[in-house]
């Protein structure tokens, strides 16, 4: 326990103040081997997650450096040709290069999932803090509403939202964001209920700290570790939800490359054995979701050393 606790703060002391590339590499290796000894498998899970996320993030930021064709280029090659050297993932029914579409599509899904997770955390966290701290009737009503939304199948709620708002990047982000608000609310509220009993919070109250100060300066910092983990897992979930919405045709207007939409297009060519149109976009959805899940899981084990006791 005490060992892993010191490990959380582990940053090797700087041997000398001047920066040198060799020194940096050496420090990196020392850091890796130390973390490896302290955390074991969990650490590697997190690293793999980070690598996947960074890779897709690179695709999203600079797709033109990887993709040989534009996402909507209808002269990329022959129609429905299987994967080849010229077209790594083959071409689709509109002569577009599937590989290029997959690379460009990462921008859409990553942007929407990240923005959605951000929006729901920005709403859910303050509500949870407030509700847990204030208690009483406000807390009971908010909890009832949040628990009900939480119990409801998220996708159906998102479908209803998306259907009413119509297609569009902002609309789909909101539709995805709504269903994750209760996740943050429940998490933050539960922890606030525990933390507000702590002596240091009472001390803050007794010296007349304002409610906002107590919530955000005293209670919130103790929740950050958990929130970070949930945020990462939340993005993973938002990715599959976004793709699901566009898979059933409620997502984005045509012209924006999107993995879910590519899947639903590929679906109609599936009976004739066109496997490449569905295999690659779907694989990317899974990979990206897996990356964020692994990142979150690894973080959870590292940030919460008690789990390591098992």
């Amino acid at each position, binding site marked *: 326990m005490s060992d892993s606790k010191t490990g959380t703060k582990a940053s090797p002391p700087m041997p000398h103040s001047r920066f040198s590339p060799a020194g940096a590499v050496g420090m990196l290796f020392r850091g890796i081997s130390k973390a490896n000894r302290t955390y074991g498998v969990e650490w590697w899970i997190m690293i793999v997650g980070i690598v996947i996320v960074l890779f897709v993030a690179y695709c999203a930021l600079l797709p033109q450096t990887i993709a040989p064709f534009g996402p909507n280029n209808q002269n990329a090659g022959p129609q429905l040709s299987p994967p080849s050297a010229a077209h790594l993932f083959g071409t689709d029914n509109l002569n577009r290069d599937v590989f290029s579409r997959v690379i460009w599509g990462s921008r859409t899904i990553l942007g929407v999932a990240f923005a959605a997770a951000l929006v729901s955390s920005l709403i859910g966290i303050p509500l949870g803090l407030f509700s847990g701290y204030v208690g009483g009737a406000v807390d009971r009503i908010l909890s009832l*509403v949040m628990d009900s939304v939480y*119990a409801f199948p998220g996708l159906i709620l998102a479908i209803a939202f998306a259907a009413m708002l119509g297609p569009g990047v902002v609309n789909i982000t909101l539709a995805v964001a709504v269903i994750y608000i209760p996740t943050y609310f429940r998490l933050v509220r539960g922890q606030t209920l525990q933390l507000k009993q702590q002596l240091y919070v009472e001390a803050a109250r007794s010296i007349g700290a304002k409610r906002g100060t107590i919530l955000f300066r005293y209670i919130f910092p103790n929740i950050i570790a958990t929130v970070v983990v949930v945020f990462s897992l939340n993005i993973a979930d938002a990715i599959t939800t976004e793709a699901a919405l566009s898979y059933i045709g409620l997502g984005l207007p045509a012209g924006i490359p999107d993995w879910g939409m590519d899947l639903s297009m590929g679906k109609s060519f599936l009976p004739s054995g066109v496997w490449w149109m569905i295999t690659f976009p779907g694989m990317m959805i899974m990979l990206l979701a897996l990356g964020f899940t692994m990142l979150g899981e690894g973080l959870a084990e590292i940030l919460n050393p008690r789990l390591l006791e098992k």
Partner: protein
Amino acid sequence: MKGLLRYIVTRIALTIPMVFVLLTIVFVVLRVMPGDPVSAFLGGHAPQSVIDQKKEELGLNKPIYVQYVNYLGQIARFNLGNSMVLDQTVWSAIRDKLPATIELTLFGMFFTLLIGVPLGAFAARNRRSPADFGIRIFGNVAYCIPVYWMGLMLQLVFAVWLHWFPVAGRTGARVVISTFSTTGFYVLDAIIHGNIPILLDVLDHLFLPSITLGIVLSGVFIRLTRANMLDTLKADFILAAHARGVPDRIVTYRHGLKNAFVPILTMLGLQFAILLSGAILTETTFSWPGMGRLLVERIYLRDYPVVQGVIVIFAIMVSVISLIVDLLYALIDPRVKY
């Protein structure tokens, strides 16, 4: 026993606010949010008079609180209104789709437990072994597989390439629909009528969609079973059983798994919502004529009373399932206080 009865009554009473809140949320999403179903349905160029007339027909011209009361009143009388597109009541549109979705969900749940619980228990028993590691990886990956993609891939491999199963649909082309008018649950109907070929045909169609759901959802149950088993196996009564010389396998699976099962049951209730979401997507993949496809089809047609009806039914279903799970929980685990 009296305590149990009181618990049941209290729990049923507690379901009412939940249903109420859910119905309110559905109302807020579909009516208070921006976006006007009538003009959307009639298209942008419809004259105002036509729009107004349609709104009056549907009661959408009234103040929002009157609409809200009417909406709740209608649902309380089990009246979901009429379709805007087809000449049918909302209930008649839903009636034969609901059993299809429930059937798919139940079989999906069956496969989920069939895959998840034994694998999780096995992993817990052989903790930190390569098998444990492999099962955990499988669980994590399965959890991340988008259910619709899993469906497409299984369809591709087992239906299109290998021809082991039909690609889509609920029955083969030769099956007479009238066989299925008894309950709407095709498996049940085929058994009632004692029609073995039809039963096999129905199961054949049911297999791929439900195993899709089963594989994807098993991830959660592997993890949950494993975690609960690890906790349970640390308990004193397990040690006592070992001390008495009970064989290891029996201790693990009979003593341990039985006790680890209560939280799994609770999870089953929570997972039901995810299962329903998954079923909707799987329906789209396998052209399964259920609630999910109805919902998506009617969204395209902008048949908003049916959309509302489908979501209301889902809301009620979720509340009832959570009620049932809680009651089962109280019945199974005598330690639950009521």
